[in-house]
C-alpha cells in the first residue's frame, strides 16, 4: 500500500518550499487525498481548492463511474398525530341566535399545526379584523391616507373597512376612554359601539383603551349595549378586574379575549381563572401578545408556537383560538421612519413600501406559529395576509393568478424592462 498523503501534508510541503504556484504538476499513482479537516489541522478551503486545481482533474471515484441509473427510492414520511384539539369559537350572532350580524365567523377547531393539511385539514382559515378607533389617532403616513376621511366617525370608518377593504370583522378600539387621553365616559363609549354595530353587519371586536382601571367599566357598558351580538370583548388581563369583564361577557352573550404578555404560565393561569368564573370554553379566545418584526417577534412567535403545540399535545388550558394584534407591527421604526437613524445603514428607501411589509411579515409569521385571527390596519397588508393564508389553508383565492409557471423557469427568466 502506498503512503497516505493528506492535503495538509502537501500544504506544509508547499509552505516549506515557499511555493506560491504550481505548474505542470501531476500526482499519479496510488495517492489518496483526504479532503476536509483532520483533527487539529485546519486547511483553508481556498488552499484545498487551489491545490486541487493545481493537481489537475481528479479521477472519478469508482462508485460514480458505476452509476448509470438513478437509485430507485420512494419518499415517505410519517404523519404527526396529536391528541388535542383547539376549541371552536364563533364570533357574531345572526338574528336566529339573538343578534343582528349577517355572517358570523368561526375560528379554531384545529387538530394539527396551522396549514399542516397533510396531517389533518385545518377546519377554518384565519380571519382578519380591521381596526377602527373612536377618535382620530396619529397614524403612519402609509396608513393615514386610507382613513383620513373617516377618522372623525367610527361608524363610517367601520363601514369603509368592510366595504372597501374586505374586512371579515371590525375592531372598534375605545381608546378615548383612557383617562390620560380624553377620559370619555363608559356611557359615551357604549354609544360608539352601538353606532358601529349599526354601521356594519360583520361581527365586531370591542377593544378598551388598555387602561386596567378604566377598561372594566367601559367594556361592561359596551357588552351591555351589544347584548346578544356575540362580540369579542378585548380584553381581560391579570392586572385588572377581569372578573367584572368576564361577568359582563357572560351576562350579555359575548366572547372574551384573554390577554397575557408573552408568558405561557400567565396565560394558563388567567384561562383557569376564567373557567372558574364559569366562562364556557367556546367563549374564549386568547391573545398571547404580538411583538413587531425586529422588536420581539421572536418571542411572540415562539410563545404562540409553544402554546399551540402544548394545546395539541393535550394541554386544555391553552387549547383556544389565538388572536394577534398585528397592528403592533407599526411600532417598528422601520415601518414608518423616513430614513435610518443609523448612519452606517444602507439606504432604507421609501417608508411607504416598508410599512405594509412589516405588517405582512409579522402577521404571516404568527399565522404560521398558530394565529387564527389578525387585527390589522393597512388595507394592502390585510389583503395580502388574507390571500396568502387562504392559499395555505387550501381555499380558492379570488383573483389568484391563473398563469401557470414552471417552477424552474426563473433560472432563465429575462428581467427585461423591469430591472431596476
Amino acid at each position, binding site marked *: 500500500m502506498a503512503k497516505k498523503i493528506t492535503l495538509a501534508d502537501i500544504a506544509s510541503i508547499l509552505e516549506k518550499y515557499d511555493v506560491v504556484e504550481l505548474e505542470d504538476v501531476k500526482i499519479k499513482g496510488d495517492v489518496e487525498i483526504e*479532503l476536509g479537516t483532520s483533527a*487539529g489541522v485546519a486547511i483553508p*478551503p*481556498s488552499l484545498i*481548492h487551489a491545490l486541487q*486545481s493545481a493537481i489537475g*482533474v*481528479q479521477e472519478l*471515484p469508482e*462508485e*460514480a463511474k458505476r*452509476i448509470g441509473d*438513478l*437509485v430507485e*427510492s*420512494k*419518499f415517505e*414520511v*410519517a404523519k404527526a398525530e396529536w391528541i388535542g384539539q383547539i376549541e371552536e369559537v364563533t364570533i357574531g350572532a345572526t338574528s336566529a341566535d339573538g343578534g343582528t350580524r349577517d355572517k358570523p365567523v368561526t375560528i379554531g377547531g384545529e387538530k394539527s399545526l396551522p*396549514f*399542516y*393539511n*397533510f396531517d389533518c385539514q385545518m377546519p377554518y382559515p384565519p380571519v382578519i379584523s380591521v381596526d377602527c378607533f373612536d377618535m382620530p389617532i396619529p397614524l403612519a403616513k402609509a396608513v393615514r391616507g386610507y382613513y383620513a376621511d373617516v377618522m372623525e366617525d367610527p361608524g363610517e370608518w367601520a363601514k369603509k373597512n368592510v366595504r372597501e377593504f374586505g374586512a371579515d370583522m371590525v375592531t372598534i378600539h375605545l381608546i378615548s376612554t383612557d383617562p*390620560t387621553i380624553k377620559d370619555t365616559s363608559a356611557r359615551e363609549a357604549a354609544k360608539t359601539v352601538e353606532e358601529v354595530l349599526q354601521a356594519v353587519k360583520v361581527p365586531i371586536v370591542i377593544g378598551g383603551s*388598555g387602561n386596567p382601571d378604566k377598561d372594566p367599566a367601559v367594556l361592561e357598558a359596551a357588552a351591555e349595549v351589544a347584548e346578544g351580538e356575540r362580540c369579542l370583548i378585548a380584553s381581560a388581563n391579570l392586572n385588572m378586574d377581569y372578573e367584572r369583564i368576564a361577568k359582563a361577557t357572560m351576562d350579555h352573550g359575548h366572547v372574551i379575549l384573554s390577554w397575557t404578555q408573552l408568558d405561557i404560565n400567565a396565560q394558563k393561569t388567567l384561562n383557569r381563572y376564567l373557567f372558574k368564573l364559569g366562562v364556557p370554553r367556546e367563549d374564549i379566545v386568547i391573545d398571547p401578545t404580538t*411583538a413587531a418584526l425586529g*422588536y420581539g*417577534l*421572536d418571542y411572540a*412567535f*415562539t410563545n404562540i408556537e409553544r402554546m399551540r403545540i402544548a394545546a395539541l399535545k393535550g394541554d386544555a388550558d391553552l387549547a383556544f383560538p389565538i388572536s394577534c394584534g398585528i397592528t403592533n407591527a407599526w411600532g417598528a*421604526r*422601520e415601518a414608518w421612519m423616513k430614513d*435610518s437613524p443609523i448612519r*452606517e445603514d*444602507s439606504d*432604507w*428607501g421609501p417608508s411607504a413600501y*416598508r410599512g*405594509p411589509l412589516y405588517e*405582512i*411579515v409579522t402577521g*404571516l*409569521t404568527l399565522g404560521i406559529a398558530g394565529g387564527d385571527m389578525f387585527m390589522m390596519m393597512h388595507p394592502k397588508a390585510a389583503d*395580502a395576509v388574507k390571500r396568502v393564508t387562504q392559499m*395555505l389553508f*387550501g381555499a380558492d*383565492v379570488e383573483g389568484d*393568478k391563473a398563469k401557470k409557471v414552471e*417552477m*424552474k423557469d*426563473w*433560472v*432563465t*427568466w*429575462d*428581467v427585461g424592462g*423591469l*430591472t*431596476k
Partner: protein
Amino acid sequence: MKLSSPMEIWEYLPGTNCEECGEKTCLAFASLLKERQKKLEECKPLFEPEYAEKSKKLAELLAPEVREVEIGVGARASKIGGEDIMYRHELTFFNRTALAYDVWDTMEEEELRERVRKITNWRKFYVGESLRLDAIAIRSVSGDAKAFAGCVKHVAEETDLPLVLCSFDAKVMEEGLNEVSDRNPLIYAADETNWKEILEIVTRYNVPVTLFSPDLDMLNSLASTFSSAGVEDIVLDPGTYPTGEGLADTFSRFVRLRRAGIVDENKSVAYPLMSVPMTAWMVHGDEDALDASYWETILATIGTVKYADMMILHSIEPHSLIPERTLIANIYTDPRRPVSVDPGLREVGTPTEQSPLFLTSNFALTYYTVESDLSSNKVDSYLVVVDTDGLGVEAAVAGGQLTAETIKDALESYEVENKVKHKTIVLPGLAARLSGETEDATGWNVLVGPRDSGRIPGWMDDNWPPKTVS
C-alpha cells in the same frame, strides 16, 4: 444528534476532569456538547491516539441530523443546514437561512458590477450587530456558455460573497464553474434530466450541489444517487410555487422533507433545503414590480419560518431586504439567551440638566423600545439602564434584579447626580411598587411613569416638570 443525554456523551469522554476544555468536569462539558454550545475539538485529550475510536464514534453520534454544507470560501463563506430540531424552542436553530440575490448573464457589465457591489455591501443595524446578505446567484439567461463564464468572472472579481451558479445546462455550468473552481460555489442544479453530467462535474470539482425536483420520490432518488456516488455536500430544492394551491403544496413539501430528515431520520433527505421566492416574479412580475416584490417577501417569510436553509431572491430594494433579513435574525436568535445591552447612562436627544431622567432594564428589547419611544417622540432625556441580567422590568422586579438597591447602585456608579439638577427619577410603571423603597434608599424624588413607554409623551404633559421641584 443521536444522543439524548449528557450521560451518554460522557461515556465517550476521557473522564479525567482535566479542565482543558474550560469546564470543571467531563460531565459539564458533555451537557454543553448536548446543547451544542461547545465543540468536540475543545476536549483536546480526546484526540490522543488512545481515544481514537471513541472520538470518531462520538463525532458521528454528535453530528446534526441535517447535514451542514459550506458554500464559498474565506470570511464570508456560509454554512447552511446543520439543524437538529423542528421547533426553535426545543433548542435553537443553528445556521441562519442564507440569502442569495440574483444577477444574470445578459446584464450590461457596469450594471452587473453595480448590482453585485450593492448586494455585497448592504448592511442594516439590528440589536447591536450589522445584518448582511449572504450570497450571489448567477443565472444563465442567454444559454451561452461563454457569456455565462464571462458574467461569473466579473461577479467573482467584484465580490468575496459565496456564489450560486444557476443553469440546468451542464456545458454552461462547467464553463462558469471553471472560472471560480477555487471559490467553492454552489451548483444549481441537477435534476431528472441532467443529473449524470452534473454528478460528473461536481465530483470532479468537489463543489456542493443543489438537486431539484418537486416530485419527492425523484428528489429522494437523486439524493440517494449522489450520496452513493460519494457526494455529500447536497442541497435539496423541492420547488417553490408562488401562488394558490401550488404554494400550499410547496409548504407541505418543505415541512415533510424536514420532518423526514429530523424526526424519521431518513438520511437520504437530511440535507439543507433551498427555496426560491424569486418565482413570485414569474407570476406577478410582468404586471407590477411592487406587487411582485411583496409576494417575493411573503414567500421568503414562509421559507424562513418553515425550513428553508437558503433562498434565492430577486428584489434588492430596501423594502424587500430589510424585512427579509430582519425576520431571519429573529427566527435564528438563540431563544435560550436573554438578549441584553450594556447597563449605563444614556442620553436621548440633547438633554439639559432640567430634562427628565427615566430608568429601564438592560433587556435589549425593552431598552431599544424605550429608547426609540423617547427619541421618536423627541423627548430629550437621560435614561438609566440598570443591569437586570437582561430581564425585562416586570420580571426583574419579581425576580429581585431590579430593586431599590440596584437602582441606588446604578445612580451612583453612573454619576447621575452630575447630570440633572432636579434630583428626580421616573420609574417605569411596571416598577411602581419600588417607589417608596427607592426614595428611602436613594434620597431622590421618585415619580412613577406609565406602564408602557409609548405613553411617556402623554404622561409628560401632566407630570413634567415635577411639581415638588420648582
